[in-house]
């Protein structure tokens, strides 16, 4: 899973900005791009120019209605906003944001909030089991057949064979035929006399 998320950070304090960026860096499994906004007068202009997916802002640094304003101004309706809280804030202020993070949050808490906002599909990575067809392909690869030979034998196109092989590589994290051989033997996919060492 690597959904690109463009994050704009509007926080005048350089220490806090650096801190937030370092926290975001610790969140793996998300592909994050950073836009730093240091001058609050530039806010609207930068947000319209880069159309970020996520906007992290210190509510006390600017007008709370800024998110709404930018959404209409730039037609960036999908932009989500996170309030960056240094201290307690009243619920009236927070209404203007999709969610809030505190400077005391851990990287994991921040990660979960971002994932929730973007509805990132974490399920997708779970199914790493090979399909029957993929196992068939491995058997032929281990026997030493070329993609063309495999395609002919299984009555599919070379392109399909390549797609299967790509999926196998990404599911197993095994890319070479010699690696697949070990996998196939350990998982009893092949008879030993079929193996082309």
């Amino acid at each position, binding site marked *: 899973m690597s959904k690109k998320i463009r994050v704009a950070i509007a926080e005048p304090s350089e220490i806090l900005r650096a801190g937030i960026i370092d926290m975001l860096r610790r969140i793996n499994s998300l592909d994050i791009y950073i836009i730093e906004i240091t001058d609050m007068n530039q806010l609207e202009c930068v947000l319209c120019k880069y159309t970020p997916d996520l906007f992290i802002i210190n509510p006390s640094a600017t007008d709370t209605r800024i998110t709404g304003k930018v959404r209409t101004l730039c037609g960036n309706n999908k932009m989500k906003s996170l309030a960056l809280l240094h201290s307690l804030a009243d619920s009236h202020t927070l209404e203007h944001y999709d969610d809030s993070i505190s400077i005391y949050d851990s990287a994991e808490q921040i990660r979960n909030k971002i994932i929730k906002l973007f509805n990132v599909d974490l399920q997708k990575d779970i199914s790493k089991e090979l399909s029957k067809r993929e196992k068939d392909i491995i058997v032929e690869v281990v026997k030493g057949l070329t993609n063309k030979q495999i395609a002919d034998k299984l009555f599919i196109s070379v392109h399909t064979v390549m797609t299967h092989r790509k999926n196998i590589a990404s599911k197993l994290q095994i890319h070479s035929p010699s690696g697949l051989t*070990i996998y196939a033997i350990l998982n009893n996919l092949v008879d*030993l006399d079929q193996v082309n*060492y």
Partner: protein
Amino acid sequence: MTEKIYKLGKYTPADSMSDLICNNYPMLLVLSRFGISLGFGEKTIREVCRQNGVDEQTFLAVVNLLISDNREEVHNFGNDSIQCLLDYLHNSHSYFLDFRLPSIREKLLSVLDINQDHAAKAIIRFYDLYVEQVHTHMEYEETTVFPYVRSLLSGVKRGDYNIRVFCRQHDNIESKLSELKNILIKYYPPGNADELNSVLFDIFACASDLASHNFIEDNLFVPMITQMELNVKKQ
């Protein structure tokens, strides 16, 4: 999170060599590749380098780059520094090819029973293919890249080769080793855990050493040579 004390900022010539090594034990490998042996007592990095005829600037550049992982602007290294880095890289190659990789193979052979176990045979085959690739990779550097750099050092730019060619095709050789690690961890049937773990630790360490070695080549060696190419061109 494990708490660990670390030095803020870079190591300098005036820091003690034993502090450097005690706080960063992987730097032991760097020492031996520069031909520095242990037993330096309370001496500073500068003193130890001088005593061993090692260019202190190169030594610190390698050490600081490996410790901080931060690439920095490379500026004006003299010919002595480049020669010193060439020696370092060469020693690093022989460490992997003549010592590290063969010793892992030995260990694999002693853990796996290749006469009984067919997977074991496939694993050794995989490993041998891998070592062959590392040989090719490093031999290219020894026979093409290093001689090219030596020719630059003597002031002549040879042929139409330049360091960008190397840069483009320089692949990360550790990834296939990670593949083996992956297979053993995910699919290897239960057996003598202690011995298998010991090989796995070696493979992990070796993969990370190889990555560091490549990191130095990409982030110190290549920028140094690029700089030198510019200088030769100016002359």
